[in-house]
């Protein structure tokens, strides 16, 4: 195996106790500590799904999230019945919570597949135990994000007009509109993420099928496993496909969120009309996605006693990624202000100043606090090794990222060119219902995921163990 540090680390641990101690010091902790064997990995991870009794916390959380899910779909039902007028939208502010939620969710969706694909491509073994739930997070967040562009339409039942299909109206999509690019980008990303996830799940479904005791469970997982039997050539094809999908996912992630940035940048509204938007949006997406991965990692680790698999070192690495992305984002904020000044465009300058001291100034300063100031705590090693502090920071970051999108969208619209056309946006109860309902729905899907699917890839954990034992 290569001499890259992360690769060499597990094997070095077995080489000698002193070396192991040294590596532990360097890395904080090992990737797969404890006396794990192939059997114990299968036992532990499949046991969560197959044999563990349903925990009380799970039932309570599930009931709460089910209630929020009902609120979400109830609000959507009322929206379809009544129209977008139930929201606080008005003529200068035509996009508010709907598009804020859209960008926020799609950003959370960005990094799940990216984490697992990029770590797979760069052969970072620490990705193995977080990739599965990160991918699940992507798919659920993306499914929710994809709903918002449809919800924000005046006539949502015509959303399929975005697709080029033969029709009697002689209608074509406007190919040069970022809104149409969005349609293709979300479609491609959702399908690719699903295939990437499922390809990884097939062998784990086979493990569940083989370990299940009840006939109905065996049949259910057996159908999902498609008859997987672990043949050498099958593994070889799957490995090729997995690598290819990972390689395809990385540029796709960047393109998807760039297109979201272009949704704004192609408009001539001050504060939006800027070429910095695509990279700026990509950095913001990675940032909030890593933070959401951290939130979920800390919770899962605690709930299912997964300290052996999601180690301190995983959290430490994730925290460093969050910090790095946060710095890129902070730089983007500075550049945004600089470009407003440098453009010498009075509207751009006004928008930048209005964000800091206009009616929405509290939102601006709250987001700076959440997104720029608080994450600086991650420089401290002590903080990076306290799961609950990391959990709190990750929540603060995602609150901040939601505020950031709200600020970007609403402050640009509410005072654009002519003061006679200025206005304010105030959310209604339906705005809040859909926001919190969507969060509840996301958590509801995650709860189902941790109960019915293996939340860590057993295949990849076995590979990690083989590498440690082989000392290769």
């Amino acid at each position, binding site marked *: 195996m290569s001499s890259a540090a992360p690769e060499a680390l597990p094997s070095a641990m077995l080489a000698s106790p002193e070396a192991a101690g040294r590596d532990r010091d360097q890395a904080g902790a090992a990737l797969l500590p404890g006396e794990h*064997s*192939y*059997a114990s990995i*299968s036992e532990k991870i499949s046991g969560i799904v197959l044999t563990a009794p349903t925990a009380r916390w799970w039932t309570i959380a599930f009931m709460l999230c089910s209630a929020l899910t009902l609120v979400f779909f109830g609000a959507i039902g009322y929206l379809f019945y009544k129209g977008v007028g139930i929201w606080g939208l008005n003529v200068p502010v035509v996009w508010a919570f709907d598009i804020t939620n859209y960008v926020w969710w799609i950003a959370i969706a960005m990094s799940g597949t990216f984490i697992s694909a990029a770590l797979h491509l760069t052969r970072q073994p620490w990705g193995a135990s977080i990739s599965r739930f990160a991918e699940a997070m992507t798919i659920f967040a993306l499914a929710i994000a994809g709903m918002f562009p449809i919800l924000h339409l005046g006539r949502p039942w015509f959303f399929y007009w975005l697709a*080029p299909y033969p029709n009697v109206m*002689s209608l*074509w999509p406007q*190919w*040069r509109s970022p809104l*149409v*690019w969005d349609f*293709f*980008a979300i*479609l*491609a990303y959702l*399908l*690719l993420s699903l*295939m*990437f996830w*499922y*390809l990884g799940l*097939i*062998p784990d479904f*086979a*493990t569940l*099928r*083989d*370990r299940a005791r009840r006939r109905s469970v065996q049949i259910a997982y057996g*159908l999902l496993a*498609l*008859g*997987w*039997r*672990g*043949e*050498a*050539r*099958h*593994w*070889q*094809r*799957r*490995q*090729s*496909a997995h690598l*290819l*999908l990972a390689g*395809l996912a990385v540029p796709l992630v960047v*393109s*998807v969120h760039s*297109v979201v940035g*272009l949704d704004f940048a192609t408009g001539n509204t001050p504060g939006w009309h800027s070429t910095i938007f695509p990279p700026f949006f990509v950095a913001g997406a990675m940032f909030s996605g890593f933070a959401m991965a951290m939130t979920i990692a800390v919770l899962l680790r605690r709930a299912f006693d997964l300290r052996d698999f999601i180690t301190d070192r995983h959290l430490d690495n994730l925290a460093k990624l969050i910090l790095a992305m946060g710095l890129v984002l902070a730089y983007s904020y500075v550049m945004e202000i600089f470009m407003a000044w440098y453009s010498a465009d009075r509207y751009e300058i006004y928008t930048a100043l209005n964000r800091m001291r206009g009616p929405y100034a509290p939102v601006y300063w709250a987001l700076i606090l959440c997104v720029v100031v608080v994450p600086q705590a991650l420089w401290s090693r002590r903080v990076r090794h306290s799961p609950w502090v990391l959990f709190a920071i990750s929540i603060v970051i995602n609150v901040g990222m939601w505020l950031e999108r709200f600020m970007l969208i609403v402050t640009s619209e509410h005072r654009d060119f002519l003061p006679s056309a200025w206005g304010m946006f105030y959310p209604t109860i339906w705005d809040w219902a859909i926001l919190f309902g969507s969060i509840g729905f996301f958590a509801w899907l995650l709860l189902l995921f941790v109960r019915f699917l293996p939340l860590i890839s*057993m*295949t*990849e954990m*076995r*590979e990690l163990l*083989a590498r440690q*034992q*082989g000392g290769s």
Partner: protein
Amino acid sequence: MNEGQPVYGLIAEFSSPADLLHAARSAHGAGYRRVEAYSPMPVEGLAEALGSHGNRISLLALAGGILGGVLTFALQWYSVTVDYPLNIGGRTPAWPGLVPSTFEMTVLGAALAAFFGTLLGNGLPRLYHPVFNEPGFSAASSDRFFLCIEAADPRFDTQHTRRFLEQLQPLKVSDVGA
């Protein structure tokens, strides 16, 4: 297993990927060609040890990507130049605006080809396979490693092949019913 019943092959069970890799190399070296190895995770070099020369998944993905890209670009080009040209201020259709959708569909085409190529190449879904008749085979998805020499192999001989497998020091060797 009783004599005279149809046999799919002989299967040997191992406890580590290294043993399986060694066994696979030996079986291939002894001239067996209808041999299959089963493991709970990918084992590097195992497919090659059984005589596989890589696979065509990447070529398929390339073809899928080209197809997705070309079709999407052609559709857009047809739409803006032939079927519904828009002349706005004398500006003729320009191609750069057609690139993002083309890129997304190129990636999607490649991904679909890789995914379905893998399923098709592996012959999945296939819920029944004779190897599942071996009672201990359920451990193949957890912590055991299997090597199966099929009865259809020209060199297969119940006695001789069993002796061959036993000298590889497996945990056990058993018949697999067809």
